[in-house]
């Protein structure tokens, strides 16, 4: 029965101000029950204040076979990391 139901990706916002993070997936027959299943599966220990569910079929993923051309060129571009600046002590949370 579960395999007849579409899969939904679940995103949880752990507290106000933080972004929703992907935490896993659930099977459910429709959006409303997908939210209920996500609530019951992923927020039973006060993990979140907000939930998103997205039909897994709607996620567009990059092709693992293209990983070389997509991601490896970034490896040698060390100058793209902002590590060459001195951050003043007064600036917190970076």
């Amino acid at each position: 029965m579960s395999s007849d139901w579409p899969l939904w990706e679940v995103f949880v916002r752990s507290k106000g101000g933080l972004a929703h993070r992907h935490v896993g997936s659930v099977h459910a027959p429709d959006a409303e029950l997908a939210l209920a299943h996500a609530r019951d599966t992923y927020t039973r220990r006060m993990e979140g204040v907000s939930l998103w569910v997205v039909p897994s079929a709607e996620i567009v993923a990059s092709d693992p076979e293209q990983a070389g051309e997509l991601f490896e060129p970034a490896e040698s571009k060390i100058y793209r990391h902002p590590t060459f600046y001195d951050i003043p002590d007064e600036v917190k949370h970076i």
Partner: protein
Amino acid sequence: MATVAVDPRTDYLLRLGDDALILGQRLSEWCGHGPVLEVDISLANLALDLVGQATLLLNEAAGDGDGDRLAFHRDVLDFRNCLLVEQPNGDFAQTIARHLLYTTWQHLLLQRLTESSDQFLREFAAKAVKEIAYHRELASDWTIRLGDGTEESARRMAEGLDWNWRFVPELFEVDETVELAISPGIAIEPRGLEADYRSAIDAVLKEAKLARPPDQRPILGGRRGHHSEHLGHILAAMQFLPRTYPDAKW
């Protein structure tokens, strides 16, 4: 006459506490047997909410805070739960029907209980009403999906409602004991909830494209300890361990 003679407030706490305990125990029977993993977890969550409510209510009813004594060391005749909550799980639809019929009533009751003259019940209701709002919502959602689903799911949902329907009038019964708890404002007059209850259930059934089951001869007695044969079996499973090993710790 049951062996526990108690004052009206304690009796009212037992009624609510035993409802929560027995329904929680019933739902926990689904653990590991749910139709799908997500529903299994969902039913276990509902069971845990109810067992948590039972703990608060029975600890208060015990007087000395020892609700376990009430849960595990009373026999069938001393339990004050309504007959609806002890009904067998049946299939998933029958479990959902029972949960819809009970938690719709419980939700209306808890909303009123937040204004009880009794401080414990006010505080209890304020906590539990949020949990039960979700139970009612989930049970309504499933009733609608099963009723307005396939031919088989609609048939099973209708059968589940038929099974449980005759136990609904007991929820609105007022006997002498509850009357004594109503007059000082501790308990809620349940008959005042009946019109809201009927229209709430009707609204769900309409959306579920199901007919309201015909009213049958009501079956009463749970509040006075006259239970169906099911309760003894529930207690046998629930009470076996603490009765067999009274000093067990876990």
